[in-house]
């Protein structure tokens, strides 16, 4: 398990996805709903919850989400009510570590007079007055004041998660940007991204070895930091062995985007990027006045898929990436005609293992469509570098690019706030909702310090040294 995932929650989710995919390949899905919970929770002792019956019931819910989830909920991120452990949500609270000191720094620093003391000089916080500023926690010499926040709420920087009357996590779809941070952070795995893995299995089966139509896989460049136990060339082999006709780099779409984004930026003078669907969704939901500044370019996924469908109109395209928000992007009318399904690296791992494909035994295949600049879109700052390069390659010298690479949605928020008040000194906002960029995506198998370097190294292996070299064959 350790070599494949960061956490046991991911591993559990993966096992369900793998078994669902296996059943789908065997045309046995209707039976799977009953057999998979028993297979995964063998008992007789409970290992995760109060009893094996609850564990199996939760696996049942996971199967439901692995098979597409609740169709009435338009969001791809969904709470599994019975899996939610109703974590405490007290906010700032004084713990037993309060010694009842006489300094009362907490009281001095509280601007709302929310701190009172009992007869033992122990502090208490008046929840009516407290605004959760956290100053008291900062100054307590005993670190006796803690913020009791749910991991999901803590992870959700757009504040889309609250709790319902039964203390279960509740996602506000009007705020949620489907970045998946809560999915990755919930220690009980009670929030999941809905899967299209069964649709992908069907696409593979119905192509009849690519005779009826050709099935293309478009992979995101962040794949370079994933599947650390195998070589990238072996993963490409595995994707083809699954039944895909060929594998194409989304990074080539990124090269295309960098080229046209440079033109658009020079024409308009100020732009925000449009590559990250969660960032775009965030602007639409929280900064509607800024929508006109979003680049009109499609995302790299959409750009490359559009090209594939142009050259091969009957083809089917599956995007494989680190991103849960891409599953939402897929629903947009300007994207839906070009991309058939989206799965994450987690789901790719499940697909590969559902066919018992041993990655380590496979030969090395190659993946070579894009330039260094297209490939480094996978990490924060890469898009800005690529746009800079595109401007340089066009020989434009009288445009002064001043980008700000926003790493994570909080940094995006700060830049958008400034821009909406016209005090942002930059003329290009690169917005990435996940910390680190796409390599921090919720659909990644692993997240680590080395990921950025791995993406950069992969970029340096490109045969094409410039963006123009990479996109030349596709320009007419």
């Amino acid at each position, binding site marked *: 398990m350790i070599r494949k995932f960061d956490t046991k929650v991911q591993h559990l989710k993966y096992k369900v996805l793998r078994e669902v995919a296996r059943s789908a390949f065997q045309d046995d899905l209707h039976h799977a709903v009953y057999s998979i919970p028993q297979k995964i929770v063998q008992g007789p002792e409970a290992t995760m919850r109060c009893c094996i019956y609850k564990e199996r019931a939760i696996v049942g819910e996971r199967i439901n989400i692995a098979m597409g989830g609740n169709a009435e909920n338009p969001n791809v991120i969904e709470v599994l009510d019975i899996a939610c452990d109703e974590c405490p949500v007290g906010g700032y609270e004084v713990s037993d570590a309060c010694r009842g000191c006489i300094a009362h720094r907490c009281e001095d620093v509280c601007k709302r007079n929310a701190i009172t003391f009992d007869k033992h000089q122990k502090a208490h916080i008046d929840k009516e007055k407290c605004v959760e500023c956290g100053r008291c926690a900062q100054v307590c010499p005993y670190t006796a004041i803690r913020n009791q926040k749910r991991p999901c709420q803590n992870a959700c920087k757009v504040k889309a998660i609250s709790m319902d009357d039964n203390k279960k996590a509740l996602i506000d779809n009007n705020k949620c940007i489907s970045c998946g941070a809560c999915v990755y952070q919930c220690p009980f795995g009670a929030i999941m991204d809905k899967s299209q893995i069964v649709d992908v299995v069907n696409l593979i089966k119905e192509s009849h070895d690519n005779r009826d139509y050709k099935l*293309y896989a478009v992979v995101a460049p962040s794949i370079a930091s994933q599947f650390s136990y195998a070589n990238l060339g072996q993963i*490409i082999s595995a994707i083809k062995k699954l039944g895909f*006709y*060929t594998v*194409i780099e989304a990074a080539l779409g990124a090269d295309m985007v960098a080229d046209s984004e440079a033109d658009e930026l020079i024409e308009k003078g100020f732009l925000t990027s449009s590559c990250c669907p969660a960032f775009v969704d965030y602007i639409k939901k929280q900064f509607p006045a800024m929508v006109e500044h979003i680049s009109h370019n499609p995302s790299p996924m959409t750009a490359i898929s559009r090209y594939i469908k142009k*050259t091969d109109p009957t083809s089917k395209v599956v995007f494989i990436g680190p991103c849960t928000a891409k599953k939402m992007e897929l629903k947009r009318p300007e994207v839906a005609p070009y991309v058939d399904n989206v799965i994450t690296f987690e789901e790719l791992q499940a697909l590969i293992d559902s066919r018992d494909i041993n990655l380590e035994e496979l030969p090395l295949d190659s993946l*070579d469509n894009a330039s260094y600049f297209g490939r480094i879109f996978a990490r924060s700052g890469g898009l800005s570098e690529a746009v800079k390069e595109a401007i340089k390659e066009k020989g434009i010298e009288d445009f002064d690019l001043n980008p700000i690479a926003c790493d994570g949605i909080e940094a995006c928020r700060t830049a958008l706030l400034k821009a909406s008040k016209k005090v942002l000194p930059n003329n290009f906002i690169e917005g990435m909702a996940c910390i680190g960029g796409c390599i921090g995506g919720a659909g990644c198998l692993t997240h680590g310090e080395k990921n950025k370097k791995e993406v950069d190294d992969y970029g340096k292996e490109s045969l094409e040294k410039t963006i123009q070299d990479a996109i030349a064959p596709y320009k007419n």
Partner: protein
Amino acid sequence: MNIYVCVGSSCHLKGSYDVIQLMKQELAAHHLEDKVNLSAAFCLGKCKDGVSVKINDEIICGVSKDNFNEFFEKHVFSHFS
């Protein structure tokens, strides 16, 4: 006429970009740019046989920098002369 040059990973390594550049040059030299629609194809399924080029519905394999002129005369220019 529609010409697709395969730029799948295998053809790419064998020099499909060179073939595309030569094709653009030759089409321009013969003033055929308006009559030929040149695009890239991601995989023509003949990965083991060298750079593949699809002309209308025919696939020609093993095109390279070295035999390009011969290929161009035979498969492209002959259609117009």
